[in-house]
């Protein structure tokens, strides 16, 4: 009987620089063109060439929100990838590998982490297998894994001969060969794959010929030796979907900014944030609805001190301005963040969290900067912190961030992370056309008025109409020093109190103004007491876990907190009044959201689920954790592990 919901986990691994990412994109697009839903997740090292990277796809009939712990299908063309991921292949899964890799002894793999290698060797020795790849393959075969050896070297040699290329040159198509072989095994039509190869490699006919040649040979090889061995019929039964986006988090943030009319962005190269800025640079110009083009300026500058300062300078002229960074860069931005708070500057900071502290793990994820984002900078000033939970949120939140920044005239920190940045997934077209743009109160100049303008005039709302640099008849001062209503430095104690109150009042105003939907999102059974709260990119894993709990007949309510600062304490206190048990899931060591909850509503999680290995949570792991909580085996604090990631 056909299940209501079906999914399939596909994984490809390979050395960095071998085009894993590109080919995964080709494959994902090909699947999307069949109407399948794809959720893709990428892991990679902080390295240019050679270190291990891999890409996971969860392919399904209904949207899936996280990747899987296991792979139904593992595609490799190097020994290290095979070695790292073979243990994660499902018992009825398939593994594609290079015939030549079978004899590689494990201790020759220099980049394999020592503990992982030792564990593998110990397991192999116990089961009487040699400490080689061949031993691992044999072990996998014993538990039902289908082995599909591919003679990559021979096929590529024939391809080199046919295309009159050097073996080295032809060898660059090994990624395409591997992906095409897996497509063929799944029964995907070669025509679809070639269409997407054209989309991705279309600019260079030589490269395209090489890659389509590799794809054709892979299909021939599989037809001759395996047939469509791994094909699953449900994959074939997709409804027509006219158009689907295949988009990653960085792209989604960038497009949200363009929809918002962002005119100025600065950045300093940093992982994983700079992908967004690079993508933005490639998107110029932006056509305007009534004709003409906008030309948002995206500037690489000398450091993050300058990036934040320049974005502030541009924001003062009325340009919608942003800067994009990751933890170490955000550390440098804090002085300008305070200046923006003090001078009521609408500045948007896209903060892509990564493993910290210090250099930490530049290409791995973490939700370790929540408390930092809320408190960054000395002294007290208002800021708004919002966190996106998935690729779709990335778009709408980055658009909305500018509205908040301009309406409340303050810095907005849009929290993202490496997991979101490197999630590629299918999504319906994003709609921004009817989204409202709020430019906030801008000073209207009047020829007869006296200048200077009181930039920081005290008003009931705390918001003073904002004059712009270059605006006619709007001369004004700004100052990072405490200032009077004219922006002139002042240390008057009474004025100081008024100015602190004016600025800090915005926090209450935000809580009063924003709707519940802007503050949090509730999923699953809204009346269930069993409650799990999360924020940021862990949302996807929570959604998947809650969905699977429901399939088991256990109703769980999931809450994604979207507005992290000002903290919506009153709303949460009401919402969580009857929550039992209360579970919090987040990717950090200390449970930063949990601490906020305890601080603001005096309630903390009964069960805290954490992960700080640098890899995002999965629905699989959370589902297992929720099941054990349901069974009464929950711990107050539990860390989710996966040594194979």
């Amino acid at each position, binding site marked *: 009987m056909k299940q209501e919901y079906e999914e399939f986990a596909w994984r490809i691994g390979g050395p960095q620089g071998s085009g894993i990412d590109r080919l995964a994109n080709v494959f994902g*697009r090909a699947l999307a*063109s*069949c109407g399948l839903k794809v959720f893709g997740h990428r892991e990679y090292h902080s390295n240019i060439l050679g270190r291990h990277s891999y890409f996971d796809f969860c392919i399904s009939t209904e949207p899936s929100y996280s990747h899987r712990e296991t792979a139904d299908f593992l595609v490799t063309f190097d020994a290290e990838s095979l070695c790292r991921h073979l243990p994660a292949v499902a018992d009825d899964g398939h593994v594609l590998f290079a015939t030549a890799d079978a004899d590689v002894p494990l201790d020759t793999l220099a980049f394999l982490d020592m503990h992982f290698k030792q564990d593998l060797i110990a397991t192999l020795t116990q089961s009487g297998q040699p400490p080689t790849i061949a031993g691992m393959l044999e072990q996998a075969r014993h538990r039902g894994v289908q082995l599909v050896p591919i003679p990559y070297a021979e096929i590529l040699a024939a391809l080199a001969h046919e295309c009159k290329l050097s073996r080295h040159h032809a060898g660059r198509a090994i990624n395409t060969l591997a992906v095409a072989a897996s497509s*063929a095994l799944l029964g*995907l*039509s*070669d*025509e679809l794959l070639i*269409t*997407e190869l054209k989309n991705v490699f279309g600019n260079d006919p030589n490269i395209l010929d090489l890659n389509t040649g590799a794809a054709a040979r892979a299909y021939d090889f599989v037809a001759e030796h395996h047939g469509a061995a791994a094909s699953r019929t449900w*994959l*074939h039964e997709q409804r*027509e979907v*006219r158009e*689907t*986006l295949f988009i990653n988090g960085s*792209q989604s943030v960038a*497009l949200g900014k363009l*929809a*918002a*009319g962002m*005119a100025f962005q600065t950045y300093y190269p940093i992982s994983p944030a700079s992908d967004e800025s690079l993508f933005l640079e490639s998107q*110029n*110009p*932006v056509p305007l*609805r*009534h004709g*003409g083009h*906008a*030309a*948002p*300026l995206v500037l690489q*500058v000398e*450091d993050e*001190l*300058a990036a*934040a*300062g*320049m974005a502030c*300078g*541009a*924001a*003062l*002229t*009325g*340009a*919608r301005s942003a800067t994009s960074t990751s933890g170490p860069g955000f550390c440098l931005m804090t002085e*300008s963040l305070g200046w923006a708070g003090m001078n009521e500057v609408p500045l948007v900071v896209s903060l892509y969290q990564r493993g910290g502290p210090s250099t930490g793990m530049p290409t791995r994820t973490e939700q370790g900067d929540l408390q930092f984002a809320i408190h960054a900078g000395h002294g007290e000033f208002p800021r708004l912190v919002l966190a996106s939970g998935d690729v779709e949120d990335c778009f709408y939140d980055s658009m909305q961030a500018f509205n908040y920044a301009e309406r409340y005239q303050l810095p907005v920190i849009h929290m993202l992370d490496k997991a979101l940045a490197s999630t590629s997934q299918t999504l319906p077209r994003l709609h921004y056309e*009817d*989204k409202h*743009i*709020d*430019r906030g109160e801008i000073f209207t100049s009047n020829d007869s008025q006296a200048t200077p303008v009181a930039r920081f005039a005290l008003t009931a709302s705390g918001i003073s109409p904002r004059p712009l*640099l*270059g605006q006619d008849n709007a001369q*004004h*001062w*700004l100052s*990072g020093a405490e200032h009077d209503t004219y922006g002139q*430095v002042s240390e008057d104690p009474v004025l100081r109190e008024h100015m602190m109150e004016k600025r800090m009042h915005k926090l209450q105003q935000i809580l009063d103004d924003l709707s519940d939907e802007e503050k949090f999102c509730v999923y699953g059974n809204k009346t269930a007491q069993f409650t799990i709260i999360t924020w940021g990119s862990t949302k996807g894993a929570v959604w998947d876990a809650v969905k699977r709990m429901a399939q088991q007949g256990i109703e769980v309510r999931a809450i994604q907190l979207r507005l992290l600062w000002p903290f919506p304490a009153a709303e949460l206190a009401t919402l969580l009044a009857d929550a039992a048990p209360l579970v919090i899931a987040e990717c950090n060591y200390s449970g930063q959201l949990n601490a906020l909850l305890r601080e603001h509503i005096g309630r903390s999680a009964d069960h805290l689920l954490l992960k700080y290995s640098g890899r995002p949570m999965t629905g699989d792991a959370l589902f297992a954790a929720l099941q054990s909580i349901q069974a009464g085996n929950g711990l107050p604090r539990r860390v989710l592990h996966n040594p194979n990631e």
Partner: protein
Amino acid sequence: MSDNKTETGHNKSPFHSDRANDWCAGCGDFGILHSLEKTLTTMERHPDQVAVFGGIGCSGKTPYYLASYGIHTLHGRVLPFATGAKLANPALTVIAVGGDGDGLSIGAGHLVNAGRRNVDLTYIIFDNGVYGLTKGQASPTLHHGEQTKAMTTPSMLEHINPQMLALAAGFTWIGRGYAYDVDQLCDLMEQAIRHPGSALLTVLQPCPTYNQLHDKDWYAGKDLDNSTGRLYSLQDEGYNPLVPADAGQALLDEKMLQCLGVAQQWNTRIPTGVFFQDLSKPHLLDPIAQCHPGYAIATPAQQPVCDEQGRPLACLDTHFEALSVRASNAKRWR
């Protein structure tokens, strides 16, 4: 009309601000402030066209004392703020001011990169050899072995030469003035403001409170035998700093070497005037406008964002198209 006249009947500058000034009596900053106010007035700029950005320190307060857009920024960061505003609204006349500690120590990275960007803005460094506002510590232009009042030992570090640094960084206009020579300073300020690239104007500025070594008398050469003083004008001696727009590499090299030569003069003969002016290099706005034709039509400050109903004006159809996958009409499965 009476509002626009001073008590002595002169026209008041539109840049004049009546705000009380808290600099020490006799501070060289007054000469710089006065020159700047006078220059902007003479140039007939309107206060709504001029943005003056200040760093942190006594000099950083300059924006408060001018009736223009006045922005008091952060220590060392005046150039990024000023650059951001200029790139977003190139119609603004942008002037950045700060001390030698602000520009050459904590903000040195920005100084170097501002030169490299060659954006049309004027950076005035108030050079007095000390951190005045924090009570007289040595700043980067204080020479090795010099000891000002607040220091417990003579300076153990070599000084930074702002002209040489600016040349290496790529500033295309480099000059030096003296705070008490208002006529020359006004001339230099006007040249720097009119120069279409990044201009660094260093102003020797006695700090009467903390730097007893380089006071008015020292610059006047009262300790020397000659009566003409330490300062001399390069231009009075026929020094030609100009690298014309069509200059070749040979002329550029010659003018750079010439600049390095005079930049090293100090002690008994200190050059002022224009050290270097290079019109042969493009400034950042040119390649930006070339790469993004839309920039010249609507700069970031003017970029249309939404219509009157608040609906976005951006049309992202082509952007989404590039990320879209169309359902295939081909046979999907084998």
